[in-house]
């Protein structure tokens, strides 16, 4: 690492350095490094199978890297179990939303506040309902009866219940109609404006780059390009590969 890199890492909220992940014999993540600073939206973009979600799961402790380091708010979290990270301020909205389908909207939100003191649950739920009035209308319904867009809102609301310092979103646009994608990205921007730091994994490069402070392009398990969202939007290679131009 050069001195300049060290300086960047020191002020980073999340710093991932040289991680390698295998699925059996498949080398899914190859020496990936990136960081997220406070107040940023950082996007990891790339095609299906590029290793974006695997990277995110490794950060959240659901998968393990054999090498390198992962630091969050100055602490090494490489070996921290997934269920210990939420309490420290690292929340993840998993790919495919993964809301608890047989539990009500409100129960899902309560689960999001599992690590929080009891007194903060009701105000948290009120805040989420403010941000997502749709969820309030459906508070008693089981999550399985919600539409895809509503489930995405619920998954995001559930993650926000833990008052995260860093919110990681895995493919929030997946399987949604264009109008809903607009809406979800609007919400992400609003969250960012109100002070949230966000790590966003997206296949929808156009949308992701248009809101990202910085982005990393992943290909077959490696980071191949990095820059600000605006830079990458006009980058010829990115345009050819991911933006259909």
């Amino acid at each position, binding site marked *: 690492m050069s001195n300049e890199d060290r300086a960047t890492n020191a002020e980073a909220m999340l710093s991932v350095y040289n991680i390698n992940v295998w699925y059996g014999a498949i080398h899914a993540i190859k020496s990936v490094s990136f960081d997220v600073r406070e107040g940023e939206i950082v996007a990891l973009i790339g095609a299906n199978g590029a290793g974006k979600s695997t990277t995110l799961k490794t950060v*959240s*402790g*659901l998968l393990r890297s054999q090498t390198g380091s992962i630091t969050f708010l100055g602490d090494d979290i490489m070996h921290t*179990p*997934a*269920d*210990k*990270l*939420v*309490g420290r301020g690292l*929340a*993840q909205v*998993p790919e495919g939303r*993964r*809301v*608890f*389908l*047989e*539990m009500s909207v409100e*129960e899902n939100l*309560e*689960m*999001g506040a*599992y*690590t929080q003191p009891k007194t903060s649950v009701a105000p948290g739920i009120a805040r989420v309902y403010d941000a997502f009035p749709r969820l309030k209308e459906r508070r008693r319904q089981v999550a399985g009866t919600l539409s895809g867009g509503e489930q995405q809102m619920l998954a995001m609301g*559930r*993650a926000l219940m*833990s008052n995260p310092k860093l919110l990681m979103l895995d493919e929030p646009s997946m399987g949604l109609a264009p109008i809903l994608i607009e809406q979800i990205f609007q919400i992400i921007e609003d969250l960012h404006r109100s002070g949230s730091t966000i790590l966003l994994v997206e296949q929808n490069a156009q949308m992701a780059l248009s809101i990202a402070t910085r982005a990393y392009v992943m290909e077959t398990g490696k980071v191949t390009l990095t820059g600000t969202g605006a830079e990458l939007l006009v980058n010829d290679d990115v345009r050819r590969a991911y933006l259909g131009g």
Partner: protein
Amino acid sequence: MTVFLQYLANGLSMGSVYAIIALGYTMVYGIAKMLNFAHGDVIMVGAYVSFCATSYLGLPAPVAVLISILACTALGVLIEGLAYKPLRQAGPLAVLITAIGVSYLLQNAAQLIWGATPKNFTAIVSFPVPEPLASLNVSAVSITTIIVCLVIMAALMWFTGHTKMGKAMRAVSEDKDAARLMGINVNRTISMTFAIGSALAALAGVLMCSYAPVLQPTTGAMPGIKAFTAAVFGGIGSIPGAFIGGILLGIIEAMAQAYISSSLANSIVFAVLIVVLLVKPAGLLGKYVPEKV
């Protein structure tokens, strides 16, 4: 008519025992997604512990039941930690075979400790039964069993529906990784489920042996299998399903003994199960969940 009511009462009380055991089965299956075939043998251990506490130590029945509950809770958590937890990533077949192994281990350990000769279990409750129940040969044990069963079911429904721990159990039951992301300690939640299931097994053991007072190392095996049947019958994983399945199974068994043939009663019980599963593959209250792609 009187005879019919007597058999119905018998069916209800045995059905309540099956229901209590089935509730334990269904809790563990619902959360850990494994069939704990050793569950029936925990019942037997519970009955032996209570037997020793009353017959050898001369303790009063409520204390004996409490000791039995504590012992089975510890045993359940121990079994889970030693035998099942290391297999969390293994296939369901490995876990199933291990559970059968644990079942034999408990039966043989019981034979080693308490011998193969059946013990004569003294009922843990007795009180004068009011009319008209007394004339139907309804015993104090039957009444107690039915009430305990109802209380347990209500308590479990309340626990899983209204407490933080209970809701966390439902979350783990649906999606372990998503539950982890909420900060739920999945291993501890599963241990907790085993603790609850085994505590229920202890209660079922003392009630069942109060009702049918012969206690030997294989005492838990057949009721265990029947209660498993009851849980599947009602829809495994469902708490009201286990209750209804247990009660129905007890009544079907009692009626088959009364009006068809006592030696065919078990065959009839399992035949009914097969028919139910042909018509409703997920059981009476179970939901059919297609494999996720």
